[in-house]
C-alpha cells in the first residue's frame, strides 16, 4: 500500500497545525460559525443531531494493522468505543468533542491518516474496488491511479470551494464493484482498439434528490492525460455549476442542463489549454505510484491440493462450508482467497465495528493477510490475501468476534446510512428498519434461496444509503412530522446500472418487514429456475409487486 514520504507527512502535519489554529480562533470568537463551517467540514467534522460527527478518510478503502489499532484507540479514547464504515469506504465517529478534533487529527497523522476533504464542497475521498489487486476479472489494478488522484485532489487550490460535493470512483475490472455510474466522475481502466489500456471517463452520475446515471464524456484517453482531463471537467463545473440552489448544484444537473454533447465540447475546449501541461503524468510518475501496489510475498502453493483440503473441511463442518461459499471470493493467486468480514450481524447497526473488533481485525490482518485490511462501500471489511489453508482458523476467530455472519451479498447484507438516530438531515430512522428486516429474515436458508439481493436504506433523499441503486431501495420520508418509508425496486449498481422505480405510496415503519416479505414472495412465485430478483423484476415489471403489496385484505 502507499507509504508516506517526508512530503506527505509534512502535508498532513501542517494540516493539523492549521486546523488547530482555526479551531482555537473559532472557540475564541475570531471565526464566525459561517466562516468555520467549510473549514471544519473539509476536516471531516459535521455538527449533527446529538454531537459532532467526524469522518476519517480511508483512501480507496485500504488500511494497515497499525492504522486499525490507532482507530480502535481513537474510538475508545475520544468516542464511545465504536466506528461506522461509510459508503465512501471511510470511518465515521459519532461522538467526538469539537475541542478534541485537532488531537484526533494529530493521532491520525502519526499513522499516515487524515480526515482531509471527507466532507464539504470539495473533491471527496476517491473510492474503488475492495478486491483491487486480487480480483480475477481485473484489467489493471486501479489503486495506483486512485493514489495519483488522491494526491492531486488533496488541497487542490482551484477546487476547494465548488458548487457542491464532488465524488470520484475508479474501476479496473470487468465487473464494476465501485459504482462508477453513480459518481460525479467515474474512471474506468479500459483497453482501446489496439489493446492499450487507458481511461474511459464518465461524468454526471449521482444519487441524492435527483438520481442520474453518469454519461460517457470520453471513451478513451491515454493514461498520461488523466489529471489534465479531470481538471478540465472540474473547471467547467466550478465555473458553470449552479450556486443559487443547493439542490441543483451537483455536476449531474449541469450535464443534464447543457446536454452531454455541449458539456463534452466545453470540457474538450478547456482541456486544450491544460493538455500536455505540467499536470501531464510522465511514465515514471505512474511507475512510482505502481511501485506501492506490488504483490506481497505470496507463497507458491499447489492450488488444486489446497482446494481439495478446503473442500474436505467444508464438508466436515457445513457451517464453515456455508461461510466459505458466501463470504469469500476467489483470488488470482492459487492457494489464496479474499475474505469479507460481515459488519451486518442482526442487532448491530450496519457498518458498525467496535474497538475490540478493530483490534482483532488488525491482529488477523497481521496473522493471515500481510498486515492489511480494506473497507467496502457495502459497509463491510475485507482481508484480501488469506491462504486457503488458514481459512478455517480465521473463520473460527471471526465467528467468536461476531464477524462471520454468512450473508455477504444477500438480503440481510443491508447498506444503511446512520439515519435519524444520528443525522440531523434525516427525515426518518434507518437503523431500526434495517434491524427489523434482518430480524424478520433470520433464516439463512431462506435468504440463500432468494439469491444475491441488495437492499439499501437511506434516511433522507440525500441517499447516503444508496437506496436508488438497491435492487430493493428504502427511503425515509417525512409526512406531516411522521416517519414513513418509500420503497423502490429494480436499482442496479453494476455496469448496466439502473435506478430503482418507486413502488407506490409509502409505509409506516412497523409495516416494513411485511412489505418486504410480500415483495420477496412475489419474486419467489414468479421466478423461473435461474432467475435472480433483478432478472425477474426486469421480465415482469413492477406491476405484480405493486398488486401484491397494495392488495386489500379480503
Amino acid at each position, binding site marked *: 500500500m502507499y507509504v508516506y*514520504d517526508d*512530503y506527505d507527512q*509534512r*502535508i498532513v502535519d*501542517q*494540516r493539523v497545525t*492549521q486546523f488547530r489554529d*482555526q479551531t482555537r480562533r473559532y472557540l475564541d470568537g475570531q*471565526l464566525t460559525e459561517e*466562516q468555520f463551517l*467549510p*473549514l471544519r467540514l473539509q476536516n471531516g467534522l459535521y455538527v449533527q443531531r446529538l454531537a459532532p460527527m467526524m469522518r476519517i478518510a480511508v483512501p480507496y478503502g485500504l488500511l494497515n494493522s497499525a492504522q486499525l489499532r490507532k482507530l480502535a484507540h481513537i474510538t475508545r479514547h475520544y468516542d464511545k468505543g465504536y466506528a461506522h464504515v461509510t459508503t465512501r469506504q471511510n470511518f465515521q465517529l459519532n461522538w467526538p468533542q469539537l475541542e478534541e478534533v485537532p488531537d484526533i487529527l494529530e493521532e491520525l497523522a502519526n499513522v499516515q491518516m487524515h480526515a482531509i476533504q471527507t466532507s464539504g*464542497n470539495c473533491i471527496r475521498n476517491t473510492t474503488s474496488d475492495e478486491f483491487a489487486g486480487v480480483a480475477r476479472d481485473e484489467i489493471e489494478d486501479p489503486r495506483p491511479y486512485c493514489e*495519483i488522484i488522491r*494526491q*492531486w485532489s*488533496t*488541497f*487542490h*487550490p*482551484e*477546487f*476547494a*470551494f*465548488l458548487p457542491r460535493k464532488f465524488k470520484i470512483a475508479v474501476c479496473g475490472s470487468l465487473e464494476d464493484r465501485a459504482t462508477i455510474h453513480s459518481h460525479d466522475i467515474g474512471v474506468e481502466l479500459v483497453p482501446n482498439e489496439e489493446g492499450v489500456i487507458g481511461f474511459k471517463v464518465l461524468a454526471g452520475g449521482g444519487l441524492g434528490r435527483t438520481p442520474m446515471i453518469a454519461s460517457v464524456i470520453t471513451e478513451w484517453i491515454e493514461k498520461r492525460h488523466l*489529471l489534465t482531463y479531470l481538471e478540465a471537467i472540474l*473547471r467547467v463545473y*466550478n*465555473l458553470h455549476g449552479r*450556486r443559487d440552489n443547493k439542490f441543483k448544484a451537483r455536476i449531474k444537473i449541469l450535464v443534464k442542463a447543457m446536454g452531454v454533447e455541449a458539456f463534452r465540447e466545453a470540457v474538450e475546449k478547456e482541456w486544450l*489549454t*491544460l493538455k500536455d*501541461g*505540467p*499536470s501531464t*503524468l*510522465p511514465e*515514471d*510518475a505512474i511507475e*512510482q505510484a505502481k511501485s506501492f501496489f506490488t504483490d506481497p510475498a505470496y507463497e507458491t502453493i499447489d492450488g488444486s491440493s489446497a482446494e481439495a483440503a478446503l473442500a474436505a473441511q467444508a464438508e466436515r463442518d457445513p457451517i464453515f462450508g456455508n461461510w466459505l461459499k458466501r463470504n469469500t471470493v476467489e483470488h488470482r493467486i492459487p492457494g489464496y482467497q479474499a475474505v469479507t468480514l460481515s459488519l451486518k450481524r442482526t442487532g448491530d447497526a450496519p457498518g458498525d465495528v467496535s474497538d475490540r473488533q478493530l483490534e482483532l481485525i488488525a491482529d488477523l490482518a497481521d496473522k493471515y493477510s500481510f498486515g492489511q485490511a480494506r473497507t467496502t462501500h457495502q459497509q463491510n471489511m475485507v482481508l484480501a490475501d488469506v491462504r486457503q489453508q488458514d481459512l478455517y482458523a480465521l473463520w473460527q476467530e471471526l465467528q467468536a468476534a461476531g464477524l462471520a455472519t454468512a450473508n455477504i451479498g444477500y438480503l440481510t447484507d443491508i447498506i444503511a446510512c446512520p439515519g435519524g438516530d444520528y443525522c440531523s438531515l434525516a427525515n426518518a430512522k434507518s437503523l431500526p428498519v434495517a434491524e427489523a428486516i434482518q430480524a424478520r429474515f433470520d433464516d439463512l436458508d431462506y435468504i440463500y434461496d432468494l439469491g444475491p439481493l441488495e437492499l439499501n436504506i437511506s434516511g433522507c433523499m440525500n441517499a447516503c444509503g444508496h437506496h436508488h441503486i438497491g435492487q430493493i431501495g428504502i427511503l425515509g420520508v417525512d409526512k406531516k412530522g411522521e416517519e414513513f418509508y418509500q420503497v423502490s425496486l429494480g436499482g442496479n449498481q453494476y455496469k448496466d446500472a439502473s435506478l430503482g422505480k418507486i413502488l407506490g405510496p409509502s409505509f409506516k415503519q412497523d409495516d416494513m418487514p411485511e412489505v418486504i416479505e410480500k415483495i420477496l414472495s412475489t419474486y419467489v412465485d414468479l421466478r423461473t429456475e435461474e432467475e435472480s430478483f433483478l432478472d425477474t423484476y426486469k421480465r415482469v415489471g413492477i406491476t405484480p409487486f405493486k398488486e401484491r403489496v397494495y392488495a386489500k385484505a379480503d
Partner: protein
Amino acid sequence: MPKLIKGAEIVNDERWKAPQPDAETVSEGVICTLAQWQALDDKAGSAVQLEPGDDVHSLLPHLQEIELIAVNFPVFTDGRGFSYARELRENGYQGELRAVGAFIRDQLHYLSRVGFDAFQLEDESQLEAAIKSLEDFSVHYQASISHPLPLFRRRS
C-alpha cells in the same frame, strides 16, 4: 485608501479606487466593471473587476494591456474566482491580480496558489494576522501558478 497584502507586506493602495458601477464615465484611477471596461476604447493601463458569472474569456485578448484585474468574492464560499485567476495566469496575464470582497484569511494560501498576488480583506484589522496564512503549507501535490511543477515531477 484601502490596505492590501502584497508581497507578504501590508501596503496602501494609492493608485486604484473601487468600481462605481452606476457611473456613466469612469474617472481616472477607478476600477472598471466588466461592462465599463468592455466599452473602453483604449484598454492600455486599465483596471477591471470581475464578478462571479462574468465571462473571463473576454479579457484574454487584452491581457498585455491590463494593469490590474480584481476578482470579487461577494461570498467566500463562491469559488469561481479561483478558476478565473488560474485561467488568467495560464493565458499569460502578468499584471496585478487582486482578490477583493468577503474571502477569509484561511483562503489566502489557496488564493496565492491560483495566481493572486494582492489581497484586499474586508476586515483590515485582520491583515497582519492573515499574512501568516499565506504560508500554511510549505509543500503541495499539484501544479499551480505559484509552483508550476507538481510534486510527482519533483519526486521522480
